[in-house]
């Protein structure tokens, strides 16, 4: 079973619908105890970084995630803000610590050259690693993005895919059991569903 953390940040319904459309048993997890019973954990999220960390901490999710994802190694997928939350820290509305799982900083997107921010809409993904979560996507995939901040990991080896909007930035991150996408696979039609399917297969393989 895949648990989708319900911490009041964004449209969780569409993530749930997307997993169910491919026959996966997915549930919303409004409380951390659900994570212990889950085989895979998805952290979605739209909104501001500091608010999200406060909600995760106050809801008891940070401790539960440390146990289930970091110690027990359950496959984790962070979507959009959910990916950024794996960073060491974010510069959104000040300086705030993240989960600190993959070293790096979340910084505002550059508007140099008249680039419109938020970066909203469909953009190409430049795939640099196809052996993981991107193994099922099409040859020239595009995905739906909505964000104003980007994750800059210290170690470029964790990046499986880049996108370019003014600057080139990390759009897919993979490190061990941790995976994240800056875009919204649940809103990215066929390529998005292919990615979620690959994640689900990984969850089945792990349990």
């Amino acid at each position, binding site marked *: 079973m895949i648990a989708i953390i319900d911490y009041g940040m*964004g*449209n969780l*319904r*569409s993530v749930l*619908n*997307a997993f*169910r*459309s491919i026959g996966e048993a997915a549930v919303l997890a409004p409380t951390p105890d659900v994570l212990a019973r889950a085989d895979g954990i998805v952290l979605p999220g*739209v*909104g*501001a970084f500091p608010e999200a960390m406060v909600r995760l901490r106050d809801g008891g999710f940070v401790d539960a995630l440390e146990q289930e994802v970091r110690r027990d190694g359950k496959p984790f997928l962070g979507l959009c803000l959910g990916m950024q939350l794996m960073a060491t820290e974010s510069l959104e509305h000040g300086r705030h610590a993240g989960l600190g799982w993959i070293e790096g900083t979340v910084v505002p997107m550059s508007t140099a050259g008249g680039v*419109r921010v*938020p*970066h*909203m*809409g*469909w*953009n*190409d993904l430049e795939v640099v690693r196809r052996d993981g979560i991107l193994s099922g996507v099409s040859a020239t995939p*595009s995905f*739906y993005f*909505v964000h104003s901040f980007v994750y800059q990991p210290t170690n470029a080896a964790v990046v499986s895919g880049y996108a*370019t*909007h003014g600057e080139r930035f990390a759009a897919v991150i993979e490190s061990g059991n941790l995976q994240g996408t800056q875009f*919204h696979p*649940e*809103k*990215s*039609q*066929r390529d*998005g*569903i292919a990615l979620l399917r690959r994640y689900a297969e990984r969850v089945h393989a792990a349990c």
Partner: protein
Amino acid sequence: MLKVRLIPVLLLMNGRLVRSAGFDTHQIIGDPLHEVKRFNEWNVDELIYIDISRDGGGFEGRPDHKVGGFADVLETLEAVSETCFMPLTWGGRIRSISDMRERFSRGADKITLNTAAVDDPALITEGARIFGSQAIVVSVDVKTVDGRDQVVTRNGTHATGLSPVEWARQAADRGAGELLLQRVERDGAARGYDLDLIHAISSTVSIPVIALSGVGRFEDYAKGVAAGASAVAAANIWHFKELADRQGKSALARAGVNVRL
């Protein structure tokens, strides 16, 4: 590179899908879910769904009808979101933060405000603060009244006296993430977009402008893009022409516009 979005708009009126002309003539064209399934199979970029039901019009999507089968508009939204794996913007009769929250919890990714945004502009800011700017689309409806262009509300029936450019700037400053720009006289008229209006608004604000109203030929889309639109939308052409997504995308690509093919 970021692509120009091509967006179908569906209009729901008292439980049924309708086509519209001039914001005041409506013709029932079918089932609220059928088109969504078709668009999803076509792999379209995004969907805008607007409930233009009039107060007191009832809800006709009862199971004993051939169409619909939903008790109310929120049930329709829920069913739409279960079939739609693309960004979904929902509009119509949203008056408060709790109306917004209800729609997000039923599966909308963005909501669009028209009347409520003009009546209470603070609602834009409050919505953006709670749900993020990316989730708040302000629909700017423009009509010539008393010899000048004005922003209109209440399904195009109420002239506000606001200048479209001024209102667009204010909506963006207050936190709207996108503008959905409509020219009432061109609704259903198939004469092409109001390109001057698109240019005036998109050069005023830095947020994306979605052009709507007037598309009659697939070639009209690229003109809207050239005028400054970040996304091009239409309603009727999606119902009355074959392969509307493929053909629309091809016409855009032929004109040199970067689209998702």
